[in-house]
């Protein structure tokens, strides 16, 4: 039974090369319209995973389905649904920007009639009008990235797969590309890989952290950031007047930050609305007992109370390094 909301279904995906295992039995799903980030150090299996989704490589074991179609068996149909930007943005340096985009658009079965209008659209979106007649090889890395994105977008695919879209760019270019990717996320489902936590935090609603070919964590970026900053993260779902609950939680000893969001299936209860609170606290603080007591005292309903397991620091010395850097 096909679930209409799920666009990518990765099931027990494994890829072995002669040099070793690159992806080791990972499974995840991506919802339509979601922006998912794959985060991990070099060699974690991000690129291999994306290549398999894009149909460039085949899995040793397991399967990937896009819109219910197997990426290998229905390769041709699947390719039309995907816009893929490989790492380091390979382009033909001898071609002109317009010529290249036209070539790619025709290759992706865009009709001649649609071509001109669509070309104009992606060029404005990616800021390429100024360089349309220039030879690709003479343009900067930042422009290459935009041309690559324009190519990925040209046939209006539902799904964009971007492998390290900001790698090797200067800070200005990085900002432009991130803005652009963010805009694209409003219309497309996006799966991107990065090894900057800050980038994932800025762009993605959900992040998978990969290491040695396995998913070591899957959560929203804010939770992951807390875990990586060596903080305890407590998640509590409380039904009660939002402002009061929020203030009371902030007042607990050891708590350094509180974020609130709606929980899944947020229906009203007798005490007010349900909210999901994410608490950041110091490494040795564990306010779970206090939270329970607080709720009991005020008559709020406590539906879930858990401490996120901390399993990332060892595996992610590298990412943590980036976090420290980014925070400055």
């Amino acid at each position: 039974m096909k679930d209409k909301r799920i666009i990518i279904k990765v099931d027990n995906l494994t890829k072995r090369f002669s040099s070793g295992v690159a992806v080791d039995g990972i499974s995840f799903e991506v919802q339509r319209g979601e922006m998912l980030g794959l985060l991990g150090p070099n060699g974690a299996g991000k690129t291999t995973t994306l290549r398999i989704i894009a149909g460039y490589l085949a899995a040793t074991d397991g399967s990937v389905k896009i819109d219910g179609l197997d990426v290998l068996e229905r390769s041709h149909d699947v390719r039309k649904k995907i816009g893929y930007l490989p790492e380091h943005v390979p382009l033909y340096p001898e071609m002109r920007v317009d010529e290249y985009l036209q070539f790619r658009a025709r290759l992706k079965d865009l009709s001649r009639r649609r071509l001109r209008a669509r070309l104009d659209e992606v060029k404005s979106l990616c800021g390429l009008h100024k360089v349309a007649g220039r030879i690709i090889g003479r343009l900067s890395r930042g422009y290459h990235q935009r041309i690559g994105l324009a190519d990925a977008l040209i046939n209006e695919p539902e799904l964009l797969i971007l492998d390290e879209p900001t790698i090797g760019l200067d800070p200005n270019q990085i900002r432009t590309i991130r803005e652009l990717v963010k805009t694209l996320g409003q219309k497309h489902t996006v799966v991107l890989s990065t090894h900057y936590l800050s980038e994932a935090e800025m762009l993605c609603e959900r992040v998978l952290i990969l290491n040695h070919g396995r998913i070591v964590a899957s959560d929203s970026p804010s939770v992951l950031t807390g875990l990586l900053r060596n903080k305890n993260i407590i998640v509590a779902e409380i039904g009660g007047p939002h402002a009061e609950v929020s203030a009371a939680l902030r007042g607990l000893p050891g708590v350094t930050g509180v974020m609130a969001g709606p929980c899944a299936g947020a229906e009203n209860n007798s005490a007010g609305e349900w909210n999901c609170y994410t608490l950041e606290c110091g490494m040795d603080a564990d306010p779970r007992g206090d939270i329970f007591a607080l709720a009991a005292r005020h008559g709020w309903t406590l539906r879930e109370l858990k401490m996120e397991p901390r399993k990332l620091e060892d595996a992610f010395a590298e990412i943590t390094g980036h976090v420290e850097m980014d925070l400055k």
Partner: protein
Amino acid sequence: MKNLLLLLRRQFLAYFRAPLGYAVIIVFLVISGFSFCRLLSQSVTEQIQVGDLLFGSAYFWLMFLVTIALITMPLFAEERHSGTIETLLTAPVTDLQVVLAKFAAAFAFIIVMLLPTLAYTAIIYMFHADAGQFSFRPVITGYFIVLLIGAFYTAFGLLMSSLTASMVVSAILCFIGMSMTFLAENLQYALRNAWLERMLAQISSIQHIIDFSHGILDSQAVVFYLSGTILFLYLAVKSLESRLWR
């Protein structure tokens, strides 16, 4: 078909947007032209047949093989090296379309390169015209074998290019393979085995060139080169597909 033409066009134009294409054509024409001039001046004193004037020069063939090694080396090796192979093979095209388009682009380049050599035929024709004894047959069969051998080695070079990400390695492998079949006949003296001798004589290009440039259409050779071309193209498709199971 649309995809095939698009890919062909891009590959073909790429030859002429880099110095390589022009350099190859110029060097080929200069060297084969000089060797033609020399043969032509020899033909004043001794009788040389039309086919030998046009296709009997070792320089012509040496340059022809070098050209093929050079124009087939970028076909896949460059795409692999720069990574464009990934955008190419994730576009809605089939591996077969990609292989055929690249083959056709390289083959078209060879035809363009050979076109100016038609002038040699014209020159010989002007010399012979009064005598009324000019026969076009060896010219036609001669060009036919040039194209057959061209297709065969282009397919071989394309296969070599699909095996590596290094253009230099591709060109060297291609050239070694070509020389071995081209000069296969010479190996028989070293081998002294009746069966091998017969086989090597069959695949040696030199005997084919001599036959065809004297107007003899050897159907066995035609079948050999065409089936070889198809085999190499098939293997190249398999080589591309190997990314999926390696």
